[in-house]
């Protein structure tokens, strides 16, 4: 399986584990000494662990797990994903899990866009990923999953004679926004409070990390795609906003070695009337790059250039294979088609 020259480049520990590894579901090669030292040096303290029996008493947690088909994940881990670091309870919280889950979510979302839209402009790409992974988006998803909140302070819970264990199964956090009286809202930004959106987002991120821990990287990828990426629909065409389309198209054509773009009027109606219509096509030599319609010649020409640029930027290959989708032996790289955004 491994040839001689390859082995020379790999460390001892990686080689021993690579021989046994079949897919990304396994924990992977053991970390070297430096990694272990670094990790242990920066470990944070955590709270009390949640026992499986205690977590299983919460019906809200059981139904949430069933709704998301998470039966293989222990209730103790799931209960932990719902406790934020502002909950004020003694239990271990989800902040570390959320930190890792955020990076998992970011990677797979970026990969999804890069594979399906290799030429998407950088700012549009970042905004699209933001639409999918920002706290506001994740909070919307959490609400659709029926996550209940527990926003009472520890003192309020004590007064209500409610045990610490009752927070399990509900998203426990202290809301930074408080409606004090009609027309007056108090917002407290401190380490002990959290906005509702952010709290929901930490739950989703922590859940993704929990799914990774128990199902492996492939399991986490499938979960993210099925529950967070596929259901969401964003019209990329409507969010691209180009400021100097004709100029940008000219620069694009010169960069790609195409003939300079020329706009030609293809059809018109009602030129001197109240509602004229002009249809302009922008051509590079004999091929039409884009077409636009407008109520003035200038507008039509601008729209034609915009449409041509959108056709370029929103290019999507047919049935692309994501790098993380196929195992190493079956993965075939796509030709890399993106030279970068146009710089005017």
């Amino acid at each position: 399986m491994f040839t001689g020259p390859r082995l020379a480049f790999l460390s001892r520990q990686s080689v021993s584990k690579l021989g046994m590894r079949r897919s990304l579901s396994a924990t992977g090669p053991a970390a070297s000494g430096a990694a272990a030292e670094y990790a242990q040096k920066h470990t944070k303290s955590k709270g009390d662990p949640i026992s499986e029996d205690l977590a299983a008493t919460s019906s809200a947690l059981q139904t949430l797990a069933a709704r998301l088909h998470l039966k293989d994940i222990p209730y103790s881990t799931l209960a932990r994903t719902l406790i934020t670091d502002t909950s004020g309870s003694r239990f271990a919280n989800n902040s570390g899990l959320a930190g890792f889950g955020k990076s998992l979510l970011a990677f797979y979302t970026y990969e999804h866009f890069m594979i399906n839209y290799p030429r998407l402009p950088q700012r549009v790409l970042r905004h699209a990923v933001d639409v999918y992974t920002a706290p506001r988006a994740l909070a919307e998803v959490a609400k659709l999953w029926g996550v209940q909140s527990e926003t009472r302070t520890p003192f309020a819970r004590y007064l209500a004679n409610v045990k610490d264990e009752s927070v399990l199964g509900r998203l426990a956090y202290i809301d930074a926004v408080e409606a004090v009286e009609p027309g007056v809202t108090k917002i407290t930004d401190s380490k002990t409070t959290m906005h509702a959106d952010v709290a929901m987002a930490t739950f989703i991120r922590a859940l993704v990390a929990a799914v990774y821990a128990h199902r492996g990287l492939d399991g986490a990828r499938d979960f993210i795609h099925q529950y967070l990426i596929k259901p969401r629909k964003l019209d990329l065409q409507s969010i691209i906003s180009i400021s100097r389309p004709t100029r940008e198209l000219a620069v694009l054509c010169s960069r790609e070695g195409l003939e300079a773009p020329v706009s030609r009027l293809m059809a018109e109606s009602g030129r001197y009337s109240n509602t004229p219509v002009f249809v302009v096509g922008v051509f590079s030599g004999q091929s039409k790059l884009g077409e636009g319609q407008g109520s003035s010649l200038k507008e039509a020409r601008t729209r034609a250039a915009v449409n041509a640029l959108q056709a370029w930027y929103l290019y999507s290959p047919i049935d692309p294979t994501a790098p993380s989708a196929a195992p190493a032996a079956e993965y075939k790289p796509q030709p890399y088609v993106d030279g970068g955004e146009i710089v005017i």
Partner: protein
Amino acid sequence: MTLQFVRQAVRAGRATLARQQLAMTGSRRTLVVVRNGQTVVRGLKKDEALYMKNPHGIEYPGNAETFAPLQELLGSEYALPEELMLQALTHKSFAHGKKPYNERLAILGKQLLRMETGRATAQSAAQGTQESINGHNFDVNERAIELLSSSPTLSQVCRLAKLEKSIFWRPADAGKGGETTIYSTSMSAVVGAVLLQHGAERAIEFIRSRLMAGPYSVFDISNQLFVDTA
């Protein structure tokens, strides 16, 4: 830009003409290049030779020698096609973005690095503790994890691997810096390129074997760079 102006300039001896390109047809613009740092008229197209060199004087697209350090880092099992290597090492500032640059590769590579460093840290931190979530302990200082894939660390990796001369970029002004960003972007872009060329499984192997172990380990570098401000 007319023939007359060029003749005047030559006569006046105000500028030295390195290359002239005079077109007689009406549809092509006349181009004049002035080579001593002074542009005479706005809207001139610069001679390519002026901006196709990186700060170390290597001309685009480089040669086998330019890619040798990167090829050594990658090894034979993570080899990349030349075009992709060149793109990974070209920054947006080079040639005003006319040549394929590494912005997108860097974004993807950075995300993978961030994920992998978090994963490796979580696995390492679980060793020696009783409570772990199936072999992972995610309760590690976030700043320490971020540092592992941050600009200072990655730019140091780039320096150690001696990739500086291979990178095509253009500093804003001589001696003004920008090396940290450029070098770290290039390193992330290399990871991104490996990811797209060889798939995620191999890219993760690459990160674990070349960037988390051995002479360019991000853990060792981050250890030196970490300053506790908590």
